[in-house]
């Protein structure tokens, strides 16, 4: 506690004065606050408007991705059905170990 403190409370604005001043500020701020509410509302209204372009963009991206994947990793090569390991691009020796479901021979590991 500060014993030297001066009582300056008479300088504090009384409640009526605070009411008047706050009312005046709020009356002048009304337009700004209304604008903020409108802007916020319009953002949510904007989102549905972006639904169609977003869907179209997503569809194009999906088509391009499929084409690229097919060119880089052809799934079917002349009657050969690619395994999952091959499709994932795993090197052939490792893919054969994975597909055989058997642990690799240590000699084969060293050789590879």
């Amino acid at each position, binding site marked *: 506690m*500060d014993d*030297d*403190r*001066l*009582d*300056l*409370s*008479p*300088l*504090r*604005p*009384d409640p*009526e*004065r*605070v009411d008047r*001043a*706050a009312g*005046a*500020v*709020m009356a*002048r*701020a*009304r337009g*700004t*606050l*209304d*604008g*903020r*509410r*409108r*802007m*916020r509302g319009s953002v949510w209204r904007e989102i549905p408007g972006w639904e169609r372009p977003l869907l179209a963009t997503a569809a194009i991206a999906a088509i391009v991705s499929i084409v690229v994947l097919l060119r880089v990793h052809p799934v079917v090569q002349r009657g050969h059905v690619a395994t999952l390991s091959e499709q994932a691009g795993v090197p052939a020796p490792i893919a054969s170990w994975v597909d055989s479901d058997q642990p690799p021979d240590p000699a084969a590991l060293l050789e590879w």
Partner: protein
Amino acid sequence: MKAGGDDPADEVLVARVRSGDVAAADQLVRRHLPLAYTIALAVLGGRTDADDVCQDALLRALEKIDDCRSPSRFRFWLAQIVRNHARNALAKRRVRGGPSLDEIGEPPAPGHTSESAERGELRAALLAALDRLTPIQREVVLLKDLEGWDHRMIAAALGVSEGMSRQHLFVARGALRTALGAEARRDHLEGPRHG
């Protein structure tokens, strides 16, 4: 400011004001209006001018609320806006060369009673005493003794060291006590000025 009870904290109110919540803005304004007024008073030294500056600064704060980077420190941000507005008003007053509205005189408030008259006299004496201090002394003593800030907060807000804040407070309190003592002695010698 710390929110008491169910009162939402400043950062909550600031977020609501950003989305245009009128009730939140009103609460924020009422909560910080006394502080804004105190700072305006410290810089300007006049009640009516302080009212105008305080209102303009609060309006500015609401308009520029997106610029408040630390909503939990809203009051410090507001204090800076008030200080800038008050300094601009002071510069305009000097250029204009006229008296402040307080020097012209303030009409008595409705419902004027002897108690409010006595309080008014005390307020006038305090304002006269404050007028003898430098703006920084006024601000330090008002923030400390009226708003209850500690020296760390005052030093950060005013851009001075805590030691300087203590020194300003010491000088300001001494000067105010002397001025108020002289005022009281003069009143005693001259008798009541009203009635």
